[in-house]
């Protein structure tokens, strides 16, 4: 491996990590409150989960492509890639937030209310702590898939390790493809292991 390649690999890895981190942060910031809100609005659940489900069925390369002509959200570059990645990451976080909170034992919820907890106390002291593991499991799935999907960001000028893969494909250079694919896979494994560990550490209920 040349010094040139190593340097570029380091750069693209950082770029990749930033893409993933920003996308996951935004996805959590949107999906977690949305999921909480949905637990209070049962009729909306079907619609919102349906939307998130549909987003996940759109082939990723196509989704990146669709976004290009869209004003504000779209175009060429990082922000378009992030929009697409966020759309993908929403569903697992949203679904697990919903499942986690709705999964809290009825007797526990009822006694919390009967003890005179306010809605906010119920959420912060009972529902979220008890749902934390399930929610984190959703974040883990979202993170691992985003690390993989983010390689496609390069197709629309989003950068990241996908740059190597697309360049390798174009020049039929397996080494280049591997230079993109191997670090991406390693990051995914590390993220999976780390978040899995955190999941186990969370309140052992």
């Amino acid at each position, binding site marked *: 491996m040349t010094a040139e390649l190593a340097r570029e690999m380091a750069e693209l890895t950082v770029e990749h990590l930033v893409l993933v981190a920003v996308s996951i942060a935004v996805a959590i910031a949107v999906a977690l409150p949305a999921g909480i809100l949905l637990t209070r609005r049962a009729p909306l659940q079907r619609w919102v989960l349906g939307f998130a489900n549909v987003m996940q069925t759109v082939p990723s390369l196509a989704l990146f492509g669709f976004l290009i002509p869209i004003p504000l959200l779209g175009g060429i570059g990082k922000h378009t890639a992030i929009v697409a990645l966020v759309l993908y990451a929403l569903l697992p976080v949203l679904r697990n937030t919903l499942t986690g909170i709705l999964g809290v034992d009825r*007797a526990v919820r009822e*006694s919390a209310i*009967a*003890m*005179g907890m306010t809605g906010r106390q119920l959420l912060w002291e009972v529902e979220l*702590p008890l749902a934390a593991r399930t929610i984190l499991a959703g974040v883990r799935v979202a993170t691992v898939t985003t690390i993989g999907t983010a390689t496609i960001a390069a197709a629309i000028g989003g950068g990241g390790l996908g740059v190597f893969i697309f360049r390798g494909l174009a020049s039929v250079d397996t080494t280049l493809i591997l230079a993109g694919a191997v670090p991406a896979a390693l990051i995914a494994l590390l993220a999976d292991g780390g978040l899995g560990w955190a999941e186990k550490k969370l309140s052992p*209920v």
Partner: protein
Amino acid sequence: MTPLVSFRNVSCRLGGKDVLRGLSLDVEAGETLVLLGRSGSGKTTALKMVNALLLPSAGEVRVEGTPTVAWDAIRLRRRIGYVIQEAGLFPHFTVEQNVGLVPRLEGWPAEKIRARALALLEQVGLPPAQFAARYPRELSGGQRQRVGVARALAADPPILLFDEPFGALDPVTRVELQRQFLALRREIGKTAIFVTHDVREALLVATRIALLHDGRLAVLAAPAEFLRAQGEEVHAFLACLDTQVTPA
């Protein structure tokens, strides 16, 4: 004197079904009123109307003279202890934290909460040194139920509600907890409303028994009178007492 809890012609419709129909009933300070009835008789519904977990669709439930709809629900509930089947303890709280919950919500100083929680654990027969730091999953069913009772008593509420508190326990533990319930009542003399479908339990703990049938009050009587009361539903329940067991 106004009764502590008063049902005035209360009806409740839940899911298109009339669960309670025109229930009128007063609960006086210091008594243990048992709501007895079969599954679906409306007894749990009536209980949940006292702490505004449910609101009447007609009539009103008054607590300390004020209709539940006029109470601030949070304030009302903190004045009412609530014990349910399976206890409903918070699995992520220790026993001590579970017991200290309402005092903490009420903003007591930490020292006072701790002292109160430990004293109550002692009172319900769970030595704090051994039990305070445990989690609910590390307790037996009977122990969890005791913690549930301690939690309900924590902020010294004037009214206690029990929803089949001993229903899920084995018969031996159940009798133990019934005895303890009576002992506690002698000690603290609180007003309690107690839901059960077990006529023995009703006769044991009640100062008065309200028998509900199909959402209506069938009989309201002290245990001694209840044994002599007339009516199909009373007889059905009293028949449970006569069941003789002949080993094969």
